[in-house]
């Protein structure tokens, strides 16, 4: 009997010890994230002020700012979203609602799964060879945005499909019963109902694209740029201009990379400042995505 008690005590002890180990390992991840944020904040907060946000990069660390790089990031994201969202959502709709079960659909599905595993720098090499040189588009906001659009396309497609899959089949059947065509079902029912899930996926994808550095360096983005792209709005007709698409650019992560690899400690502080801006934007995007997901889950009860 005492043997039995001893065995039980031993097993309980094992469970207790593993519980502790699990908590420690979880804390390794959480504490590293905290250390990273604190470290970045301690270094970067001193540099973060209005002049830092509105100045061009400079040879002198204290005068340098991130104006051209955050404008670049913004424009690149604009192109990326305009290219990846319609393309990805359409592809998702096709695969989930239209595609017949055949070898072609299988090929497309396997291909999307594999694309998600291709290293981002490979996308950069593809864009360099194809867009920059074969199509002679050069290195500009347009090619940079398209490169990142290719990169996040699988994420958008998968998110769209998952959102569509949560809509009960009865909704589709009800719409067909009233005489809707397939496109009418998609346009008036499936797209609005899946909007929450799709938006979450799109925001997560964009937050990933914002931090991407390697593919843009590969296509030859500038690391030092002291002018802004031409403005999209003009005083004289036709009032809008797409000239900025052809402008050279830099982005926040590239600016940060440029500063972090310098031996001068003042520039490293600048890198921390740029990193702080970058991580705040990324975390905000993620928070928005989590909020949308939460609200959609709460509101929709099929």
């Amino acid at each position, binding site marked *: 009997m005492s043997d039995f008690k001893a065995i039980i005590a031993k097993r309980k002890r094992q469970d207790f010890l593993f519980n502790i180990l699990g908590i420690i390992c979880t804390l390794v991840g959480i504490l590293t*994230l905290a250390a990273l944020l604190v470290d970045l904040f301690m270094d970067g907060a001193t540099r973060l002020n209005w002049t830092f946000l509105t100045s061009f990069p400079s040879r002198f660390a204290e005068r340098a700012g991130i104006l051209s790089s955050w404008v670049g990031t913004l424009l690149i994201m604009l192109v990326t979203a305009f290219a990846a969202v319609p393309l990805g959502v359409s592809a998702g709709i096709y695969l989930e609602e239209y595609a017949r079960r055949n070898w072609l659909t299988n090929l497309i599905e396997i291909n999307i799964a594999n694309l998600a595993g291709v290293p981002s720098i*490979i996308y950069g090499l593809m864009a360099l060879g194809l867009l920059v040189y074969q199509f002679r588009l050069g290195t500009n906001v347009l090619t940079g945005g398209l490169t990142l659009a290719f990169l996040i396309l699988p994420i958008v497609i998968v998110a769209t499909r998952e959102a569509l899959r949560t809509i009960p089949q009865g909704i589709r059947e009800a719409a067909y019963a009233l005489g809707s065509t397939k496109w009418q079902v998609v346009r008036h029912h499936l797209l609005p109902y899946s909007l929450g899930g799709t938006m979450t996926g799109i925001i997560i994808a964009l937050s990933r694209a914002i931090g991407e550095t390697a593919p843009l360096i590969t296509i030859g983005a500038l690391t030092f740029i002291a002018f802004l792209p031409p403005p999209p709005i003009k005083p004289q007709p036709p009032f809008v201009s797409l000239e900025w698409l052809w402008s050279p650019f830099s982005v926040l992560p590239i600016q940060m990379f440029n500063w972090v690899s310098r031996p001068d400690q003042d520039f490293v502080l600048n890198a921390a400042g740029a990193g702080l801006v970058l991580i705040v934007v990324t975390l905000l995007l993620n928070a928005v995505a989590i909020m949308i997901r939460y609200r959609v889950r709460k509101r929709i009860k099929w």
Partner: protein
Amino acid sequence: MDEIPNLQHPVAAAADLSVNQPPSETPTARRRLSRIKERFIEALLFLAAFSSVAITLGIVGILVYESSTFFAHVPLKEFLTAPLWTPLFASPRFGIMPLVLGTLVTTAVALAVALPIGTIVAIYLSEFAPPTVREIIKPALELLSAVPTVVYGYFALQFMSPLLQKLIPGLPTFNMLSAGVVMGIMIIPYVSSLSEDAMRAVPMSLREGAYAMGANRIITAIKVVYPAALSGIVASYILAISRAIGETMIVAIAAGMQPNLTIDPREPAATITAFIVQVSLGDLPHGSIGYQSIFAAGVTLFIMTLLFNILGYILRKRFREVY
């Protein structure tokens, strides 16, 4: 055309008894138009889906095209066996091995961190943690993979490297160890989240069987749940490996940019990805051997990730359990 204004669906039209002839014989102009429109939209949507295949073709095509000119210059034997990678020197050598070793060493360090920690976290979250803790910890850990990699590079160089220098005397500022450790922490959520999903999908009855035999939680987790979920767990390991091999900014910032034929993680060394970044930062003329060398490096990287993905596919099939 005005007789049946809103009937566009063939089933609905056939059900309408006021139409004497079958609708397929005398389709009205509007119905024909709507059918054309439907076809057109479907074709557009198909093109969007097919664009993903076009991207893959673009990747493979460009890599093959650009590196074929490289391999016309450099024999494959030199590429695979030469101990030096100095494509930009006056007397260039083109041995990819130093870069491959750099990639494998940083990947190994990252996996040594991520696989044990990620697996333990997954077991803890799936089998031990109360649901409320799990609901908070899981998204919090996933934020680790949302942080931009260039920020991790900064962290590796400015925080991890000085920290490790205190523990290991004589460690240079740029080293593969700190880059690998930080990379490992970055990929913890890939392992923990996916493995946890796989473990939670294991039916409760298996655990109950083990408990009934007198097993405690940890024995059940290791001997019953882990093997049952192995297919999904292996998938998460493979994803972690692909991430580590393809990771660029952390190693480019913290591991140094010099190709170095070594397996000692305390030394600095360039990885395949770091080399591509380094060359791209300079201004290489299109068509030069240096320009082609980044595509040759890219092909090597692509093949390495492809091999691991195929391996993962085979392992997943082998370990698949059906309940």
